[in-house]
């Protein structure tokens, strides 16, 4: 309870306080607003991929009178996809190195690791394009049957997420190279790293659930 006598005489219930001496208030959680924003967005994105994965699991083996063509699972090239999955997972390692280096103000290293991460991501996307093209040649297009629609939608959405991540990484590389983004804003890279790791984790789920589980 506040002191009764004091507030009864006070004309200003909420007058100047010690808090006003600080130019801005600390956040309630100690985390920055931007970081919580990314966590909240990723939480939401979990449900997006959850729904897409469920849809795929529901539809992958369903057949009807006019079903035609192979299912996606018939055409999987597990060794190939394992390699591209490994490449994507390694990009998480380089992402961590990028974040660490900007936190230590090692800008040249940060640039190197940002570019490496983007490159590894691009290799993954290239692999996906190669894989999709192969599927299409073997007669499995987006509209061929119900499992192909579900497969291309799920993996396509993941691919779009990776691509957006690459755009962000390249943008960061430009900003760091131009000197627009220094160690004082290391958290920006850290937040993009959160996104990047999330996209990688989603791929682990997709690879396990879609590719590996028969």
């Amino acid at each position: 309870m506040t002191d009764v006598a004091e507030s009864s005489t006070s004309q200003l219930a909420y007058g100047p306080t010690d808090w006003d001496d600080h130019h801005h208030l600390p956040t309630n959680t100690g985390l920055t607003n931007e970081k919580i924003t990314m966590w909240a967005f990723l939480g939401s994105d979990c449900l997006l991929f959850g729904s897409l994965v469920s849809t795929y699991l529901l539809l992958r083996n369903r057949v009807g009178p006019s079903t035609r063509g192979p299912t996606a699972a018939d055409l999987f090239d597990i060794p190939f996809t394992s390699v591209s999955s490994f490449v994507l997972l390694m990009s998480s390692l380089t992402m961590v190195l990028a974040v660490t280096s900007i936190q230590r103000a090692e800008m040249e290293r940060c640039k190197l690791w940002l570019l490496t991460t983007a490159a590894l991501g691009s290799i993954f996307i290239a692999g996906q394009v190669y894989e999709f093209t192969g599927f299409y040649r073997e007669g499995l297009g987006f509209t061929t049957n119900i499992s192909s629609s579900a497969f291309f939608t799920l993996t396509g959405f993941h691919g779009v997420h990776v691509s957006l991540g690459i755009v962000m990484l390249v943008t960061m590389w430009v900003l760091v190279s131009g000197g627009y983004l220094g160690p004082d804003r290391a958290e920006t890279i850290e937040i993009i790293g959160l996104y990047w790791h999330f996209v990688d984790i989603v791929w682990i789920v997709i690879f396990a659930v879609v590719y590996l589980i028969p």
Partner: protein
Amino acid sequence: MAITEERPEILELESGDTTSSTGVFARPTNATGWRAWLFTVDHKKIGIMYGVVAMFWFLWGGIEALLIRAQLFTPNGTVLTADQYNQLFTMHGTTMVFLVIMPLAAAFANYMVPLQIGARDVAFPRMNALGLWIFVFGGIFLNLSWFLGGGPDGGWFAYAPNTGVTFSPGAGMDFYALGLQIAGIASLVGAINLIVTIINMRAPGMTMLRMPVFTWMILVVQFLLLFALPVITVALILLSFDRTFDANFFNVSMGADPLLWQHLFWIFGHPEVYILILPSFGIVSETLPVFSRKPLFGYSVIVISGAAIGFMGWGVWAHHMFVSGLGPVGVAAFSATTMFIAVPTGVKILNWIATMWGGNLRFTLPMMFSVSLVSMFTIGGLSGVMHAVAPADTQQTDTYFIVAHFHYVLFGGALMGLFAGMYYWWPKAFGYRLNDKLGKWHFWAVLLGFNMAFGPMHILGLQGMARRHSRYGPEDGFDFWNAVVTIGAFVILIGMIIFAVNIVRSWLGYKEGTVPQEPADPWDGRTLEWAIPSPTPEHNFDYVPVVTDVDDFWHKKYQPDANGKLRKVADGNAIAQKGDQHPHLPSPSYWPIVLAAALPLIALGLIYNLWLTGIGLVLLLGSMFGWSLEPATDPDAGHGDHGDDHGPEEDGPDGNDKVEAETAEEAPVD
């Protein structure tokens, strides 16, 4: 200006060269006129615009409802064709849910949450504006369908495959799928922003369990939105891909499962029900204590039951699907969870009644609407529990009994609460009260019309009148109650016209000086928004309030004396802040509205021409980059780097040093 020179700005090159830090283009600077609204990032202006736009759609959705009722006034009505009827009931539901109640709640959330937690703005003011404009463009896009070949006609729940190209060949369902997608992005942006604001920007001392209940309920709603929206996003994507790109998700001849849409839709749809009602629960939890002059009975129980509704709301969706052949186990499980979720809701009702019990009741307009929420929602809640009983629900599904139920919870519940909020916070937002006499006419007309319109629907439903049918025959025996229902609908219209007249007359009176200026604390309020002048000054708080209690402002005014009796120790209007400080605020920006405009372009392109989509995507990416290169606050305007949560500049010799001391850690990446 010293401030700009001394401050490390984000676009400063390492070499020491500085580039223009205001982004690619000049930024808007207008403080008045239409530009001040179009490019504003002020949460209060954004809140008011949410409200204005939602009321426009309320009028439009109401007209749709009246057309439906005109058609059903007599047997074999000839006002509408069956096709027009389908479009109207689809768009009535879609409009009222997505373009009226959700944005009205967003209006209150945007305006009131920062005030209730003692903040200067939301966490990301530009993102806030973005949410508003995406919603505005989404609403316009959805309704463009009326001019481009007819509205959506598959019901607001749009069951696929019924909404596929085969059964709904017009472009209406495309507008539905893409329009809701756009509106969903708006809600998601707003949800993240408000979550961060409430979690991170509360005034010193305001722990989670000292937050006003309205803010609490808004927090729960934003989490529901955060997790529910992606599910309908996926459902709408599947539908759009089917319709636009010939995918096979709902193609039964390929083996599709028609239940897929129903599950996805209702996993979103049932949390959506709580998204619609919880803001109103929050509003009456504010008004009932104020007008009963008692603290809210069981504050923590109300908060926890609200959060419990938020959790349990995820486990009841299949009660919308009892007749779809789920099997006995599924039906029994969802039956049980649905009965169980009535418990926290009932707890709230009892808490509100106990709040009023023995209180010193003042029947002002906000109080009247709040009490009508408690009573009308209880009726709707009771018919809701009836649906939890699967055999009863099997009988009632797709009859007017269901229509009666959800209008009692959404109109009698959500909308009554929102009206309570309007009358309650009108002085805070605009500086004057709405006329009391006209307001009472409004209240009684709406309450009477509402019960006339939706009460008899219970009877019609039990008599077997099916929903969504454009006609009934004279031999069905539905004529009398249908006539009553239609008359009731027009009585509601009269009530709403009185409300509109009230707004205009009170506003004109205020400008002429016949309607008095309201003081800071007209209702003897309990929460922080009443500790600042009416209307709210642009910067909200002169000084950051330090909070020590639930209902902190009340405790500043009333304190126990030596005998433990509560005594008034200060007058709210006397101790309220004066609004005479001038802290820095975030600057307006063009980017939110430009970025938002890209979305309807993309969507129109998906329906008509992919080139348009390309243009939209370029605009989208371009404005994203323009946005992120623009600091949240224009340094040339002499403001601080951000105005969200910092204390005011005091007139002192060290004023500039404080600005300098600010680090770039909150650099704008929103």
